[in-house]
C-alpha cells in the first residue's frame, strides 16, 4: 500500500495507520429493536469520527494535526496510541532497525494482532500528553508516585533507584525534584503540563501524541512548553503527532502538517508548503482566519457557515456547502487524497 501520505524526506517509518476508521454508534437496545419491529422510526446514530484515514509517521518526525473542534483529530490521536480500538483499519509499528546501514530493514508489526505480551511492550513505547493537565493527572496521587508508578510496575527501574531516576526526569522537564511529594493541585498550569510530559517520558516512549497539549496554557507558558517539546525531541529523538487547533503553533513546531475536516484528511504537506502553497479551500480558509499581529483594522472576511453535524455529514466532499469553489462533482463524489506535488497531498479536485 503506497497511497498513504508518507514523509518524503525521511523514509524510515515508525508508526503507520492504514485505512483507519472509527465509528461511534449508539446501537438500539432491546426496547428500541422491539419498537422498530412495531414500525417506529428508530434511527441508529452513527458518528464517523474518523473516516478511512491513512497516515505514516517517520521516526523522529513531528507531524502536526490541525482542524476545528469535532473534526476527529483527537479521535485519530487516540486511535494512533491505541486508546480507541478502530472500527476498521490497522496500526503498524516499525521495530528497531534490524539490518546494517544500507538495507535499513525494519520489521513491520500489526500491533493489534500481536500476542498480549508483545503488544504491551510496544504499547508503552507510544504515549500521550493530554490537553487538560489537571484532568490527566490523578488528583489523589503524589506526582512522584504518579510518574514512577508505571516504570516500577514494568520493572524499567528498580525501587532503590527511583529517587535518582525521578529527580533526573523531573529536572529534564524543568521541574524541581523537591516537589515530588506534592499533589497535582499544588502546581501551576505550566508545571502540570510538565508533569504530564514527565509521566509520558517515564516509560521511555519513542512516539508521543500531544493532544492539544498547549491549548489550555497562557501564551507565555505555552511558549515554555513548546520549547520543552522541541528540546526533548532534540535530546531523545522522539517522534510526535502534535494535535492542535492552533495553526500558528503547529506551523512552528511541525515538520509536516495534516489538516482534517469532519473525520477526513483534506491536506498533507510540509509545514512550509501548507502555508505557502496551501491547496485545499478549507486549509486556505483556516490560514486566512489566522489572527495576525501585523494587520491593523483588518476587515474580516470569514468563510461562511459552520461545520456540519458529523452524524449527518454532507455527501461528496464534506466541505462543499461552505466552499466558494464547489462544483457539481464535489456534491456527489468524495475527492481522493492525491499527491499534487512531491510530499504534498490534497483531497480537492481543484488544480494545484
Amino acid at each position, binding site marked *: 500500500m503506497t497511497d498513504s501520505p508518507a514523509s518524503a524526506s525521511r523514509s524510515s517509518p515508525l508508526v503507520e495507520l492504514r485505512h483507519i476508521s472509527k465509528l461511534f454508534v*449508539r446501537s438500539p437496545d432491546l*426496547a428500541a429493536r*422491539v419498537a422498530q419491529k412495531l414500525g417506529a422510526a428508530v434511527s441508529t446514530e452513527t458518528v464517523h469520527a474518523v473516516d478511512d484515514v491513512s497516515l505514516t509517521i517517520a521516526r523522529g518526525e513531528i507531524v502536526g494535526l490541525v482542524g476545528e473542534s469535532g473534526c476527529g483529530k483527537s479521535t485519530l490521536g487516540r486511535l494512533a496510541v491505541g486508546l480507541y480500538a478502530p472500527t476498521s483499519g490497522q496500526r503498524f509499528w516499525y521495530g528497531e532497525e534490524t539490518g546494517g546501514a544500507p538495507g535499513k530493514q525494519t520489521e513491520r508489526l500489526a500491533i493489534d494482532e500481536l500476542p498480549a505480551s508483545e503488544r504491551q511492550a510496544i504499547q508503552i513505547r507510544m504515549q500521550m500528553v493530554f490537553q487538560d493537565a489537571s484532568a490527566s493527572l490523578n488528583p489523589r496521587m503524589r506526582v512522584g508516585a504518579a510518574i514512577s508508578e508505571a516504570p516500577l510496575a514494568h520493572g524499567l527501574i528498580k525501587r532503590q533507584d527511583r529517587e535518582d531516576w525521578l529527580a533526573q526526569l523531573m529536572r529534564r522537564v524543568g521541574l524541581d525534584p523537591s516537589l515530588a511529594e506534592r499533589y497535582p493541585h499544588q502546581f501551576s498550569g505550566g508545571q502540570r503540563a510538565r508533569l504530564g510530559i514527565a509521566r509520558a517520558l517515564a516509560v521511555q516512549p519513542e512516539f508521543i501524541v500531544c493532544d492539544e497539549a498547549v491549548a489550555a496554557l497562557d501564551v507565555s507558558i505555552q511558549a515554555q512548553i513548546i520549547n520543552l517539546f522541541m528540546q526533548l525531541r532534540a535530546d531523545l529523538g522522539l517522534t510526535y503527532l502534535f494535535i492542535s487547533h492552533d495553526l500558528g503553533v503547529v506551523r512552528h513546531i511541525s515538520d509536516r502538517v495534516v489538516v482534517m475536516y469532519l473525520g477526513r484528511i483534506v491536506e498533507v504537506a510540509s509545514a512550509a508548503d501548507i502555508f505557502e502553497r496551501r491547496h485545499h479551500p478549507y486549509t486556505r480558509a483556516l490560514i486566512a482566519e489566522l489572527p495576525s499581529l501585523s494587520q491593523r483594522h483588518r476587515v474580516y472576511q470569514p468563510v461562511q457557515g459552520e461545520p456540519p453535524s458529523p452524524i449527518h455529514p454532507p455527501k461528496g466532499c464534506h466541505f462543499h456547502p461552505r466552499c466558494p469553489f464547489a462544483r457539481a462533482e464535489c456534491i456527489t463524489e468524495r475527492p481522493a487524497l492525491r499527491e499534487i506535488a512531491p510530499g504534498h497531498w490534497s483531497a480537492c479536485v481543484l488544480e494545484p
Partner: protein
Amino acid sequence: MLVFLLRRVMQSGVALLVMSVLVFVGVYAIGNPIDILVNPEADSAEIERATAALGLDRPLWTQYLIFLQKAFSGDFGNSFVHGSSATQLILHRMPATLELAFAALVIAIVLGIPLGLWAGLRPESASGRTIMGLSILGFSLPTFWVGLMLIMVFSVQLGWLPSNGRGSTVDLFGLPVSILTWDGLKHILMPALNLALFKISLVIRLTRAGTQEAMLQDYVRFARAKGLKASRIVGVHVLKNILIPIVTVLGLELGSLIAFAVVTESIFAWPGMGKLLIESISLLDRPVVVAYLLIVVAMFVVINLIVDILYSLLDPRIRLNAAAD
C-alpha cells in the same frame, strides 16, 4: 418516545416479576398464615381445610405459577383474611394514602421552595443559617417521634386538631377527598405535616444548593448584565433551572412518601394502604402484601414516567429517547 415507553414497560415488567417472586418467597418464609388465621379452637381437620381453601397445600412454585397466571389477567387473588379481591381492597384504601402523600408533597413544595430560595440567596445570613439548621433538624428527627410529639402537643395538650382518622370526605370525580371540608382539612393537617417534614427539609436543601449553584452560573450574570430585575432573575431564570432537579427528586420521593405513609398512617390511624399493609403483614395475608407491593411499584413506574415527561417539559435539553442510560 415509543422506545422510551417500551423500555420503561420492559424494565418495570422485569422489576415487578422479580419483586413478586421475592415477596412470595419472603412472606412464605415468615410463616404459614394458616397458623395465625385459624381460630385456635379449630382442630387439625379445619387447619387442613383452610390450607386447601387458600391454596396453600400446593408447592410454593405451583402457588406462584397460579398467581402469575391470574396476575396477567389483572387478578392478584383474594385476600386470605378478607376473602375479597386483594386489588379491590387496596384500591379502596388508595385514595386516602394518595391524598395524604399529595398533601405532604404540596406542603413540602409550598414551604420548602421559598425557604430554600431564601437560604440559597443569603447563605451566610442569620435567617439563611437558621433555615438550614431547621432543615437539618427536619432531616434528622425520626418521623415516628415527631408524629407522636405532634399528637401530644396539638391534639392532647392544645386540643386543636383531631389526633386520628380521616375527616369527612367529599366525592370529587368519584374519589373521596377530604381536603375540601373543614373537618377533613383538620384531620389531614397533622399527618400530612408529619409525612412532609423530611421532604420539606429535602426541598429546602435541594433548592438552596440549586440556587447557590445557579447564582454562580454565567446565565445569571448575563441576566444581571441585561439589567433584569432581581425578582425576575430569581423567579424565572434561577427557579426554572432549579425546578428541574427538584421535580425529579420530588417525583421519586413521592414513592417514598407513599411508602413512609406506613409509619404515619399507623401513628395517626389514617385509613390508607400503608395501614392495610401493616395489618396484612401481621396476618401474613400474602395476596394483599404481594398486590400492595406490585401496585406500589407500578405506581412508582407511572410516577417516574410522569416525572420524566415533566422533566423533558421543564428541561428542553432532554429528549426522552436520550434517557436511555
